[in-house]
């Protein structure tokens, strides 16, 4: 467990997450309908993970009670929900991702995952791959989907990543969207306007490196 810090890694700077989390305020406009949060991410060591690793990418209200805290303020986004991450040569696979929300101390996950086989790079590669999360506001349910490696994995430069972030429907080799999954979450009116991006990783046996972070309003 350690507070996230900057790490020089493979000729770039990354945020080193080890049972840690971060948030950053954003200013979403009135009536936003769809917001996108994206990162490029890399797992620090090879090897499968068991015990339901939690990697969460989303938005929430404020920066006080974050996704990984005992009490959370109106978080909604995508979170890994599978018991195991499988390991292959240089990447992890079989990562189950669901839509999720948390207000207070209880997580809510979509009944059906967005997908059961998302992928993430690990050593043998030297750059991260993009994980993009689209969050559509709704009442009572929000809808979440992810645009991540699925058919394979590929290193993404910051420019690759930002190109996809700026497309209404991004396209990239090896990446695709899963299935939109609704999740119950407090409406913007009830939540009082979510105003921060919030990312959490709950493990220390493998660190996650975040190489880029971006937020875009899609609609």
């Amino acid at each position, binding site marked *: 467990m350690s507070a996230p810090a900057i790490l020089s890694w493979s000729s770039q700077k990354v*945020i080193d997450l080890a049972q*840690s989390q971060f948030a950053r305020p954003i200013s979403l406009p*009135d009536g936003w*309908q769809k917001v996108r949060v994206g990162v490029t991410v890399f797992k620090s060591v090879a090897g499968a993970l068991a015990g339901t690793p939690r990697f969460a990418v989303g938005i929430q209200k404020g920066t006080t009670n*974050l996704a990984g805290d005992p009490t959370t303020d109106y978080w909604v986004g995508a979170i890994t929900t599978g018991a195991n991450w499988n390991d292959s040569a240089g990447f992890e696979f079989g990562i189950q991702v669901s839509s999720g929300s948390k207000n207070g101390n209880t997580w809510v996950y979509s009944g059906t995952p967005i997908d059961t086989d998302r992928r993430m790079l690990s050593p043998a590669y030297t750059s991260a791959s993009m994980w993009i999360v689209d969050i559509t506001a709704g009442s009572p349910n929000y809808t979440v989907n992810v645009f991540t490696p699925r058919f394979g994995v590929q290193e993404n430069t910051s420019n690759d990543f930002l190109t996809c972030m700026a497309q*209404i429907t991004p396209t990239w080799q090896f990446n695709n969207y899963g299935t939109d999954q609704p999740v119950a979450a407090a409406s913007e009116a009830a939540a009082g*306007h979510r105003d*921060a991006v919030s990312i959490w990783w709950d493990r220390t046996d493998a660190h996650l490196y975040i190489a880029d972070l971006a937020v*875009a309003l899609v609609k």
Partner: protein
Amino acid sequence: MANSVLDYLSALMQDARCFRCIPGKTVWEIQTYLLAYIRGAGVDPSALAKEAKCLQCLSIQSLLEIRAFLLATINGTGNDPSSMVQNAQCFEAIPRGDQMEVQAYLLAQDPKGPGITDPNLLAQAANGFQGVPPTICLQIQVFALATMAGVSTDPNALMALFRCGQCLPSPLLSSVASQSLEYSEPVPSGSGRSRLVPPPVKQPGVGRGGGVNGGGGGGGTLNPVATDWGNRVQANGGAPPSVNTGKVVSNFVDTLQAGGIWSKMKTINLMIGPDLATMATPLLKGAGSDPWGNVNFVAADVSAMGMMGDASSKYFNTGVAPKDVFNTANGGMSVLVPYNTTTSDYIIRAVTGALNNDCYIASLQSGNSLFAIPRSTAAPISQAYPGNGFFSCSRTANNVFNAYWGNTSVALAQLGATSAVDVSSEAANMAAATSPLFLFASNNSGSPVAYSDKQVSFVAIHDGLTLAETTILYNAAYTLRLALMGGAEFPPIYDTLESYSNGDALNGKAGGARWSTAYVGKTA
């Protein structure tokens, strides 16, 4: 900054003797006053007072309504206290943290404070958002009282009048009572500070700091144009613009005025949501309609990115007839198109009878971008589609007509060559151009044709502008849309982290493109 906040709060606590300094009756008067505001101009606080069972309290429902209204104003969400009240099961339905936010927000208005207008910062300084200390509550109430009574704008001075915290001096109480129990517009502070109290839903306005009503004039108030827009938005049935939107709009007007081009603007629509009424309410009405005539748009068409046509039936009638704003030597139009599809269409256009009074901008018409004011016997300026962005054209003389284009990546520049065709012979045609400009369609003598499927996030009809003047408008439009995080070609805010040093703690780091805030990093 954090230290200054703590110092400020600490000083407040030292100044205040106790929380009970304001009598219950006075608290009640403040609440009644707020409630009267919320419910509109026709509500008499005296009548409200009669509904109350005692002078010590309003009904729980009324208290909830007050706090819901303040919360909606602060957060810019919902904005309809009635619906918030209906959704709430009880007074506690508003989270305590939000109640504290309301109080911190009000406190942020204190000009004696550290200049922090972010209620989160104040609330964080106040016991981690869990509670604003009672002494701070006192300060808030005194400040409210000062504004309401109009007898002083300095809460500290008022607090100095407290002898033992049991009561205000009777003359002051009488003043408060007489003013608060007889409904009237609130008295703005003499120091130029924003008003404390948000305006009623039915007494609209957009305000700085105080939430929604800046009242115009004075340092710290909104530009009156923004306030007027907020009034008209609500008169047209829209939700009260949020504090953030009010500030952004005010800054936009300030920029145009400081740049010397405001007087050249004829009609402006910022294409801001969150509802159809707001979207249809022009910032500057000019010779046009207010609201713009909506044909077939529905609430679901409103987006934080602007408004998008459907290429088949939906458009706005601006009400602006070219004859009223253009002539053969002067005229201009600008639109921001953050998202483009492929339909060949016109973004904004009107033609009456003869083609020689035809005025338009087409971002993508048969593959090209077209500009005309007016189209004469010569062809319009036609250039290959340059990409999503800010399209503008200006006629500054009978024989000088230019088109401009730029976006968030490419600086504004002239698009194509200057059209030097002398159109002075079209003066009679222009004078007969009575059909108003349509947005998202071409107005062909009253009939909409060539519907657009483009997204539009800014529209201005103006005098002919030079490149330098157009650049001011372009910068202001993008500044506005970026501040609203929508409507500027979909650019993400991002951080590649390369500006940081190895080993730095993430917490507090601020960098990246278009971010204005810092990370909060912590263990989990």
